[in-house]
């Protein structure tokens, strides 16, 4: 199966086409095809995982399985498609197909009766196929194709309800922001293509980067350009602005975007081409580097914003941004396994939280937490699973988030990135606090909305229950003493020196980070439940009020982008374009029109009226005159005709005699 892993992206791709072609005529309007394809894909991924785990570890590492089909070979440059299946790819295959399968099932209930139900499932399948294509890619070109397809599908799905202007502008914003990063990605791919000796192969690229085959300057430039793409796709500061707006899409799409596809593509890219980043940004030397810095800023910035949101999906969106910051920070700190492991665990509990929030929205018909409250009584299943997800996200022992977050902190500490360890601990405190706030506002107290909330249908409830299991237990895969994850998923480039070091579990750090998380949760709970919030603190202290205003306005980043960058460029360009339009283009068009008219008039008067008509009329008149004169010879007298005949014969005879 590992050799045939290309089947796994192919399945949802075929399903997408099939749904579009025949979906509307099926009893389930197409969802059965999508669910069937993803079910098969998930089974295939599990078989892949089993085969990968069962692979021999001779030489210390499992050997990656590759296959490549060349499309064009031109001047030694190989362009084609292929698969490179190692632990990282297998892990992603399992996560993506699992989450996507559950999202498909969940959408049956959530999207029931939607006017573009079939189209939605087709796009969902295509989204999954694109992400899987990216995951299995063995060359940067194929990876980029998958990357762009993911962007396109996210555009289609975020703008699924495009009839409302807000939704379509959110889709455009997502598209434009990520495209901005994609320019960097494209340049990076081109730089690295030439740097690696005109070769797109990723393993070759990593090998060259780690063994000194590429100069440090080139690596730095390539890595910086790639990282721009990562910042766009994985919503890192300051290109994170599209992700909260992307909440305009249907909630299952948000779950898919945040957990399995789209945003993790950036993190995956860093993990996949880690050799370039490791050498390019000199990650081995500790201290501060761009990747870790951006990740760290993102952790704290997004966590701060999550406090002031009323929309439950936006709280989760900012928490995703924050968690993506953790992953990028981990990769920037040289803790490759920790970053990838956090991606793995985060996928489960974030999908769970998003699907849970979808269930809440389905029940109260509003995204706003101010219209929820007291839902524990009405929706017991959603309540239990949502709390499990929140605890996992907050990093409470022994749920999934605890282990992966702790591993990141430990990696930062051991690799001498002390600053980022502190950032991680502060982030853990904030995460626990804002998730407690969200849970309290949603489930505790009295119901503040309209109508009667109700538990969701089974197709929405069961995915929550299923997801809560890995959300609780996935972390044990890399827990001390029993953990095996770091042996299954590792960064290994044959022939290159080892760059990653496993660090022993650090109990004091784990206890400290847990204590901080519990402290954050307790403070938030006391503030809301017992009204221990200092009354009027905001009114008395201008500093607090200013801080609140900055958070509510999202650090004024949107304003900066719109007023500072977009307008500055847009207005002069628009003005110039208007001037060009009025003076140059209109001038050309008008002049062209006037001259055409003159030429046409001349042609009409002289050529058409005099020339062509003259010919036509002359032909008629000539024929008439000829007929009139010839008519006289037609007397009807047979003897006259005979006389002409004899006369002519006589003339010919005379002519013959004379000539001979």
């Amino acid at each position: 199966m590992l050799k045939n892993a290309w089947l796994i992206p192919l399945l949802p791709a075929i399903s997408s086409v099939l749904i579009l072609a025949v979906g509307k005529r099926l009893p389930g309007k197409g969802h059965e095809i999508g669910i069937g394809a993803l079910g098969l894909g998930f089974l295939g991924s599990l078989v892949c995982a089993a085969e990968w785990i069962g692979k021999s570890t001779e030489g210390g590492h499992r050997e990656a399985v590759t296959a490549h089909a060349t499309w064009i070979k031109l001047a030694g440059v190989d362009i084609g498609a292929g698969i490179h299946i190692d632990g990282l790819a297998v892990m992603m295959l399992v996560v993506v197909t699992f989450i996507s399968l559950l999202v498909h099932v969940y959408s049956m209930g959530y999207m029931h009766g939607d006017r573009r139900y079939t189209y939605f499932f087709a796009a969902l399948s295509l989204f999954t196929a694109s992400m899987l294509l990216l995951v299995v890619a063995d060359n940067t070109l194929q990876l980029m194709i998958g990357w762009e397809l993911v962007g396109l599908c996210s555009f289609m799905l975020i703008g699924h309800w495009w009839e409302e202007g807000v939704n379509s502008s959110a889709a455009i914003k997502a598209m434009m922001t990520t495209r901005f990063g994609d320019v960097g990605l494209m340049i990076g791919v081109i730089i690295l293509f030439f740097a690696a000796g005109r070769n797109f192969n990723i393993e070759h690229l990593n090998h060259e980067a780690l063994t000194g085959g590429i100069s440090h300057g080139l690596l730095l430039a390539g890595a910086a350009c790639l990282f721009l793409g990562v910042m766009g796709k994985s919503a890192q500061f300051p290109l994170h602005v599209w992700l909260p707006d992307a909440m305009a899409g249907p909630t299952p799409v948000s779950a898919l975007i945040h957990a399995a596809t789209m945003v993790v593509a950036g993190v995956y890219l860093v993990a996949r081409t880690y050799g370039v980043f490791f050498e390019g940004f000199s990650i081995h030397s500790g201290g501060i580097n761009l990747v870790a810095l951006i990740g760290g800023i993102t952790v704290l910035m997004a966590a701060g914003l999550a406090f002031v949101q009323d929309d439950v999906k936006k709280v989760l969106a900012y928490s995703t941004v924050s968690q993506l910051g953790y992953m990028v920070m981990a990769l920037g700190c040289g803790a490759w396994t920790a970053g990838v492991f956090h991606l793995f665990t985060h996928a489960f509990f974030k999908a769970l939280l998003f699907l849970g929030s979808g269930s809440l929205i389905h029940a109260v018909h509003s995204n706003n937490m101010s219209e929820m409250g007291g839902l524990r009584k009405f929706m017991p299943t959603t309540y239990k699973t949502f709390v499990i997800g929140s605890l996992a996200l907050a990093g409470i022992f022994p749920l999934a988030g605890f282990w992966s977050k702790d591993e990141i902190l430990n990696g930062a500490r051991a690799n001498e990135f002390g600053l980022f360890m502190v950032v991680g601990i502060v982030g853990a405190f904030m995460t626990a606090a804002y998730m407690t706030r969200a849970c309290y506002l949603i489930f505790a107290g009295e119901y503040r909305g309209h109508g009667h909330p109700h538990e969701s249908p089974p197709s929405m409830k069961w995915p929550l229950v299923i997801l809560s299991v890995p959300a609780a237990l996935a972390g044990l895969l890399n827990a001390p003493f029993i953990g095996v994850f770091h042996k299954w998923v590792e960064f290994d480039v044959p022939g290159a020196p080892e760059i990653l070091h496993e660090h022993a579990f650090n109990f004091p750090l784990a206890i400290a980070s847990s204590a901080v998380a519990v402290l954050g949760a307790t403070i938030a709970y006391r503030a809301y439940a017992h009204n221990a919030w200092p009354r009027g603190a905001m009114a008395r202290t201008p500093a607090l009020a200013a801080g609140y205003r900055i958070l509510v306005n999202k650090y004024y980043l949107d304003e900066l982008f719109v007023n500072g960058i977009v307008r500055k460029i847009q207005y002069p360009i628009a003005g110039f374009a208007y001037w060009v339009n009025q003076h140059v283009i209109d001038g050309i068009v008008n002049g062209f029109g006037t001259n055409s008219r003159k030429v046409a008039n001349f042609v009409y008067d002289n050529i058409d009226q005099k020339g062509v008509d003259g010919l036509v009329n002359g032909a008629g008149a000539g024929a008439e005159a000829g007929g009139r004169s010839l008519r006289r010879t037609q007397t009807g007298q047979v003897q006259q005709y005979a006389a002409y005949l004899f006369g002519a014969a006589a003339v010919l005879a005379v002519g013959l005699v004379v000539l001979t």
Partner: protein
Amino acid sequence: MLNQFLMLAAVIFCIGVYGVLARKNAVLVLMSIELMLNAVNINLIAFGAFRDNVIGQVFALFVIAIAAAEVGVGLAIVLLIFRNRANIDLDQADLMKG
């Protein structure tokens, strides 16, 4: 020897031509055509006899046969003209005048 025959044939042919062009009566015109054909027959036979072969006579026989058929058709036309107009003046048969 030959010249006398040719002269006779030429004279008869010319009389025929005159008859065809100048007479009003359709029957006389047909008869004049017969004269012309027979002038040709005289020529054919005279040349045949002079050259001492029978091809001239064969052609003359063909001409006589076809002339008989032609007179049959011609007289039928004349008869129909007479029935329609009660005369056979060729001058007045000018329906095709342009």
